[in-house]
């Protein structure tokens, strides 16, 4: 656990840098987290993805998979990889203030 001062708020993060309380999220926090992930500016397309993920978490309790984002025409998989290079599911979740996606084996 760690704390960071962002936009006048004290925000708590877990050991892997994901926000503990997603309700404390706002766009200014997203901008700071995006910079940490190497994304200079968040565009409207980024926010289409982020807002949709947050909506699904609020309604269903779990973040959508890459496949679901593609299927529901939120964002094609190829574009998602361009928007969040390196690891879209994890990066987008972190910037959206959500938990780390649950992996499975």
């Amino acid at each position: 656990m760690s704390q960071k001062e962002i936009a006048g708020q004290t925000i708590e993060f877990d050991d892997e840098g994901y926000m503990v309380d997603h309700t404390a999220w706002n766009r200014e926090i997203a901008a700071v987290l995006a910079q940490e992930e190497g994304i200079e500016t968040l565009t409207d397309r980024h926010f289409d993805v982020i807002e949709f993920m947050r909506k699904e978490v609020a309604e269903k309790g779990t973040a959508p998979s890459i496949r679901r984002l593609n299927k529901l025409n939120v964002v094609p998989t190829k574009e998602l990889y361009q928007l969040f290079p390196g690891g879209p599911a994890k990066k987008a979740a972190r910037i959206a203030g959500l938990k780390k996606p649950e992996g499975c084996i």
Partner: protein
Amino acid sequence: MKHLVILGAGTAGTIMVNKLAPVLDSDEWQITIVDQHETHYYQPGLLFIPFGIYTKKDVIKPKRDFFPTGVEVVFSGIELIEPGKNQVQLSDGKVLPYDYLIIATGSRINPGETEGLQGDGWHRNIFDFYTIEGACGLAHFLKYWEGGRMVLNIVEMPIKCPVAPLEFVFLADWWFTEQGIRDKVEIEFVTPLPGAFTKPRASKLFGDFLDKKNIKLTPDFSTGSVDAENNKIISWDEREVPYDLLVTIPTNMGDELIARSGLGDELNFIPTDKHTLQSKAHENIFVIGDATDLPSSKAGSVAHFQADILFENLLSAMEGRPLRAKYDGHANCYIESGFGKGILIDFNYDTEPLPGKFPLPGIGPFSLLEETKMNHYGKMMFRWMYWNLLLKGSELPIESQMLMAGKRV
């Protein structure tokens, strides 16, 4: 008469029918099991076919051999599950009403999900080994291959038996050595995971094995498409890996029936309570094995451990008692590492694979997270156990809940 219907007679469905038939009163309950195929495949055996260790006849038996008496067996496709009407429609239009339904329809590969994968290269120099056709085709191909770049790629997670791809490259390293052409073969392991495996200690161990066996690891590679004309796989972020022989684990999905019935997620896996194995949407539907969306391995050992839990919870539900048995995510995998040795891992939702002895703490005979000859014998013996004990629902000397005894933290 009340009706219990089981959909699917693979590993999970067959174990369940064998556990339930002896205890449900046949004056009260009619048990029906439905499957479209008459042949049971010993799926762990498919891995050995490409290397000529097993042939087709070593991994198949008629499903009929494994059904208890007094159970209605229906060999038919299934058109639709209708939870609102508590009934199942078969392909021929026949309707099966149910009081309780167990869905055990499994998971299968779906190469059509990846652009270019099923094109000209499919079963020419691109093979899967998760189907009997793929495994036998690959065996034939390897017999005549003189070497080149062999790429093993996992298209996306989750997949059935997540250790099988590692076993495949370990065995390939051994087999090419035996054939005297190891120096003419480059082996590359391409995975969407950040390392050789997911859990940290196992991932490190398997990563070291890949190194030692001169197998190149390419992590974080999510396959977007296959260019079969130019023999390369291309990731979503436009990296390319060339191959001469591609051994692929295509996208795994639940049965199309699940999508038709509106019961699944994007991969046709059914949202299921990870502890009770009850469907999240319908109280009288239970789900077991690969058909669930649980964050556990899709593997026979998992189906076997879940069967104990589902057995208890289904009887509780039938008698109006709360569902007390809890599945803990327990999985147990024998991993062939080549040259007559194997590695064993034992883990659950919360505990990653750890070193130690198994199943008897301190004694073994098997060693966890360690490479031994005994672990390999365990794997080879398992086929007999599978046909003779496991499918018949007999007790095995392994607890369904994972034990910490014998493990070193």
